[in-house]
């Protein structure tokens, strides 16, 4: 009897969320599916009276795009590299922040700053740091960027990071730094929030145990924080697969260095390319991306079920 009562009560609690989701999320998803199944669907043309063939043509077109594998590869690569790096780094920072007393408030505030730093400013900084200006076939660059200045001061040779003729891995390196930098504050916030909820007794116990710092980290901190870590990893993966704005931020909408457009394009980049002229194809690409993210998240959830300690 109690169970039955619980049933409707649960739905009552969920009611506001469900109503809003139905209107503003579920309905658009259905609409996306509908558009994806109409060949070259175009909402403006539909208003103009055009009709569209039903079928899987959009999906076929997406998969047969010459840059499809590039988009998919870049998306996967960026996610697989940046999520572990940013999570580890955020964890280390959060633990470090939690184990100092002096200046800890100031450090916390500093690590939060990227959150309030305007994205235009960030783009400018990365240009100033990595971008060379004025290099040409017969002329030397007039500005080589802060990073290259440091490299040359240390006796190294400068690298063409993001400009015309730069190679793929230099581009990737800059992107990874940019993405990790962007992802840090949120992850630190969540992990630090989690750490501060951990009872110090565990650490005292570990101390009594004579466990080394490293051992304490792996055996106490990580397990206790596992729900938070799972959270940042799963959302990190989802965010990573939707990577787009960071590439535009550095390379512009051509999604690649000058002379090599599209070489850094991602799945969402492809969707944006198609969205005005061919919403049908964009929808199909979005659903393919959705299927990929869904599969990865399922794996993540499965792993975290086994590893996360509640």
């Amino acid at each position: 009897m109690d169970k039955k009562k619980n049933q409707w009560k649960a739905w009552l609690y969920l009611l506001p969320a469900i109503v809003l989701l139905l209107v503003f999320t579920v309905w658009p998803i259905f609409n996306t599916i509908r558009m994806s199944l109409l060949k070259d669907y175009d909402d403006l043309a539909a208003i103009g009276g055009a009709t569209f063939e039903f079928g899987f043509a959009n999906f076929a077109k997406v998969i047969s795009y010459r840059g499809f594998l590039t988009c998919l590869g870049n998306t996967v690569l960026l996610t697989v590299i940046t999520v572990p790096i940013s999570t580890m780094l955020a964890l280390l920072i959060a633990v470090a922040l939690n184990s100092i007393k002096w200046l800890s408030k100031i450090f916390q505030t500093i690590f939060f700053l990227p959150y309030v730093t305007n994205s235009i400013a960030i783009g400018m900084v990365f240009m100033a740091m990595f971008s060379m200006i004025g290099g040409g076939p017969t002329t030397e660059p007039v500005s080589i960027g802060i990073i290259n200045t440091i490299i040359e001061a240390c006796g190294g040779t400068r690298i063409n990071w993001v400009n015309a003729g730069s190679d793929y891995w230099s581009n990737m390196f800059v992107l990874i730094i940019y993405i990790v930098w962007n992802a840090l504050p949120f992850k630190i916030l969540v992990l630090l929030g989690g750490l501060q909820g951990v009872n110090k007794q565990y650490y005292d116990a570990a101390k009594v145990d004579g466990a080394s710092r490293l051992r304490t980290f792996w055996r106490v901190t990580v397990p206790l924080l596992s729900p938070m870590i799972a959270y940042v990893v799963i959302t990190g993966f989802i965010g990573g697969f939707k990577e787009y704005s960071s590439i535009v931020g550095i390379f512009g909408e051509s999604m690649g260095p000058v002379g090599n457009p599209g070489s850094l394009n991602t799945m969402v980049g492809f969707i944006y390319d198609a969205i005005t002229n061919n919403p049908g194809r964009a929808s199909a690409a979005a659903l393919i991306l959705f299927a990929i993210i869904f599969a990865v998240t399922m794996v993540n959830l499965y792993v975290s079920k086994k590893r996360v300690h509640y």
Partner: protein
Amino acid sequence: MTENINAVSDEQILPAPPKGMKERDIRKVSKKQTVLKVLAQIGLYVFLTVIAIAVLFPFYWMLISSLKTLNEYNATVPTLWPQEFLWANYVTAFTGELELGQLFLNTVIVGVVSTILSLVVTVLSAYAFARLEFKGKNALFAALLATMMIPGELFTITNYVTVSAFGWLHTYTVLIVPFLVSVFYIYLLRQNFLQIPNELYLAAKVDGTSDLKYLWRVMIPLSAPTLVSITILKMMGAWNSYIWPRLVANDTMHRLVTVGLRGAAFVDEATGMTNFPAQMAAVVIVTIPLLLVFIFFRKYIMRGVSRSGIKG
């Protein structure tokens, strides 16, 4: 209010300690260990300082850019310190076309209202997922998670048609309601709720405490840090949101801060060149309230933590 929480003993709150930890006697702390400890602390500070510099640099860049002349900003070799301080950029930011006062007001209204409503919706849903048993719970939760995997841009057009059919264009409603539910937050809070041991709930049931009362008296205080994080993120969202507000409420009475900043207020009509220094000055002005909010809430996080009885 706090008594209820203090009444809960530590043993009840704590999950079982991880395996591999056995009771042993305290060892003597030798001198060597003290030295190591000091070195470790120094190492920590060095590590944090290096990262802090990397994190601060763009922020610093934002500040100095806001003080440069347009010519210096456009210089081929960027300067690390303004040759001359052009405070007039701040005057331009305030007196230019940007109606900063109205932008702030709009953003605060939208930020506060949507944060409060969003917290209510999130707490209720997270509670249902964490504590209540009902048919199809796991499937629904998985479906919810799945919704955040679709790139949002695809929702925009459909949602635009929906809100214009509701007659919501150019209102505060259209800026608040469509994004009240965040699966991210529900997920985060549910994880937090799950950490609170079930025994507490069962005990409360025996005492005849209603669900809502239990939620209000126990769950919410215990999850204060998470709720504060959500609050900050949501406020930040109002501050940073751009694509949707620009589309549905880009009029003086409802325009939000970022839409104003990114808009054409600083762009030269004919050449399309942006007056970045003045824009940066406006950005700095807009950033200050955010920073203050964070500094204020950071203290609150501490209090929230200590209130849950998890003092060292």
